[in-house]
């Protein structure tokens, strides 16, 4: 086996040749096959192992060069942009070498099986780059710089997701001819699209490798990458997107990444005082969420359950932002409209998309059988008093004693089965009462301690979104629990949960506003008779101002 030093020397020479070639005026694809021959002569492409070592060494060479320039920037008082431009000379050249090798690996008949070598090579190289970055962070610690890795990844993304011929595949009309598809160019080319998803998937795997909890030094670049317009476009609109062709197949790639950054932030967000770096990352994440709310609200609607599981309970504004999303083709009536009858809205009987996979948390719980049986037959009666125990984390500490995703899943599951039993058309304060479903909810309201009840009420309030059958059912449920509870503590806590969501800066979910307005307007709840309405002058003033704006 060649020694590392021999291979390093070869690699250096080959890289230097390539960088010179890249910056010469001849277009790379004209000279690429000559370059590949020299790679072959040096035995670089001979075995899988030699390819791996070549890419690892060349990555490290480019990275070291970049560190040299960045660290020397102040010494020779180059401006930031000058230093960056210098770094990019090498990094971009290296990225384009990878692009050319990916494009030319395998054959170019355009059939599906021939794209496999391209994707395999891409996966390998991305994995190597991620591995070098992780190792670099362990070695350099605070001195780690994201730039070389970030730059290579973003140039690869731009080059490999630009258009059909970016992967060295024949232009589309040849496709049609060879594959016998009768597709006109403006339609989705299945082969191109399938390869693009594999390319996106390769990047997403690398992002998982470099996720903030594993590579915190790369966190800012990581968020910049998932917030990059091209990455958003390809994942959320589909790789072949045009204004008329939008595909949601890429959403399953994007959602776990978004949830990843929120999970990373969650422990820090649990404490009100945010350190500077966390504040930066938090605001950056809000910006990305705002873009999603504005441009891809359906995506937020679909993944709101997983996102709510990841968002800490006290990050109220972030959660409101997610819950405020509603499908673009939907018109929301002004919640402050007097005598608004939400049950007359056509959308109110439709169930929202995207709930199914969150219920998987319930599939494996030990009490599932009892839950199903209780919902069906209201037995075993012991289920109700055991339920609280099921929801608690074994050896959880204060503020962490409950399994929040499980509470969320339970509330959603019970609510969904209630809606199925009632049929969405008949949801009302009377139709939701006296059912096994309501038994469970009322029992939780009474039996849980303050912390547990807070999480339980949050789980219900998380369903108050745009007009749909869940919003309607859970709005009625929350008001019903308020009306039927015999202790003021529960009524006060319901009010607190709603209030804390309302007094935070916008946006506010439609269902939240509608429910709260109903609570303070509808005399049957005797809202204003309660002491807690007057527990502090500011609170009283706040209620009155909200009342004024809607009564």
């Amino acid at each position, binding site marked *: 086996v060649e020694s590392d030093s021999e291979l390093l020397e070869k690699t250096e020479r080959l890289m230097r040749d390539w960088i010179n070639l890249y910056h010469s005026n001849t277009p790379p694809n004209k000279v690429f096959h000559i370059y590949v021959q020299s790679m072959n002569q040096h035995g670089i492409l001979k075995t899988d192992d030699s390819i791996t070592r070549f890419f690892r060494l060349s990555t490290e060479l480019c990275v070291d060069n970049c560190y040299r320039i960045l660290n020397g920037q102040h010494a020779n008082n180059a401006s930031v942009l000058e230093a960056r431009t210098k770094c990019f000379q090498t990094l971009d050249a290296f990225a384009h070498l990878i692009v050319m090798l990916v494009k030319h690996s395998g054959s170019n008949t355009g059939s599906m099986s021939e794209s496999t070598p391209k994707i395999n090579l891409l996966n390998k190289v991305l994995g190597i780059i991620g591995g070098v970055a992780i190792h670099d962070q362990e070695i350099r610690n605070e001195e780690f710089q994201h730039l070389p890795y970030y730059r290579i990844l973003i140039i690869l993304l731009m080059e490999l997701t*630009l258009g059909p011929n970016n992967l060295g595949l024949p232009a589309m009309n040849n496709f049609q001819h060879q594959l016998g598809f009768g597709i006109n160019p403006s339609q989705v080319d299945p082969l191109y699209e399938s390869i693009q998803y594999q390319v996106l998937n390769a990047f997403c795997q690398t992002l998982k490798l470099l996720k903030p909890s594993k590579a915190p030094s790369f966190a800012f670049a990581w968020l*910049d990458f998932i917030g990059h317009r091209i990455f958003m*476009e390809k994942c959320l609109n589909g790789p072949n997107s045009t204004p008329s062709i939008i595909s949601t197949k890429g959403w399953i790639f994007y959602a776990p990444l978004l949830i990843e950054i929120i999970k990373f932030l969650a422990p820090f967000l649990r404490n009100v005082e945010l350190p500077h770096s966390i504040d930066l990352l938090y605001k950056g994440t809000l910006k990305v969420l705002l873009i999603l709310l504005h441009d891809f609200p359906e995506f937020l609607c679909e993944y709101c359950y997983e996102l709510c599981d990841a968002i800490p309970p006290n990050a109220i504004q972030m959660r409101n932002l997610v819950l405020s999303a509603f499908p673009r083709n939907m018109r929301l009536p002004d919640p402050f409209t007097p005598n608004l009858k939400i049950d007359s809205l056509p959308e109110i009987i439709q169930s929202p998309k995207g709930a199914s996979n969150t219920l998987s948390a319930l599939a494996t719980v030990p009490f599932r059988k009892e839950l199903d049986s209780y919902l069906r037959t209201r037995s075993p009666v012991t289920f109700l008093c055991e339920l609280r125990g099921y929801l608690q984390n074994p050896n959880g500490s204060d503020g962490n004693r409950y399994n929040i995703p499980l509470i969320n899943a339970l509330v959603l599951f019970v609510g969904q089965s209630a809606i199925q039993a009632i049929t969405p058309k008949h949801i009302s304060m009377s139709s939701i009462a006296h059912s096994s479903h309501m038994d469970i909810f009322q029992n939780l309201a009474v039996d849980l301690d303050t912390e547990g009840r807070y999480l339980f009420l949050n789980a219900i309030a998380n369903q108050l979104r745009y007009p749909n059958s869940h919003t309607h059912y859970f709005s009625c449920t929350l008001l019903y629990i308020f009306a039927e509870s015999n202790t003021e503590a529960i009524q006060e806590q319901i009010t607190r949960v709603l209030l804390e969501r309302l007094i935070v800066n916008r946006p506010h979910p439609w269902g939240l506003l509608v429910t709260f307005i109903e609570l303070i307007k509808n005399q049957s709840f005797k809202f204003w008779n309660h002491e807690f309405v007057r527990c502090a002058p500011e609170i009283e003033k706040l209620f009155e101002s909200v009342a004024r704006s809607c009564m």
Partner: protein
Amino acid sequence: LGIDLGTLKLDLNSAENLYSTFCGPWSDQPLKPHEMDYPVPHEYLIN
């Protein structure tokens, strides 16, 4: 409570989509036309 999201410098009232001019979470300026890649006819690429 929370922050005024309007201070994050995103034009949330824009009828256009935001992501295509989004310059990343760390910048307050949207991308300017000469900073945005655009699929122009390849004959235009003269340099």
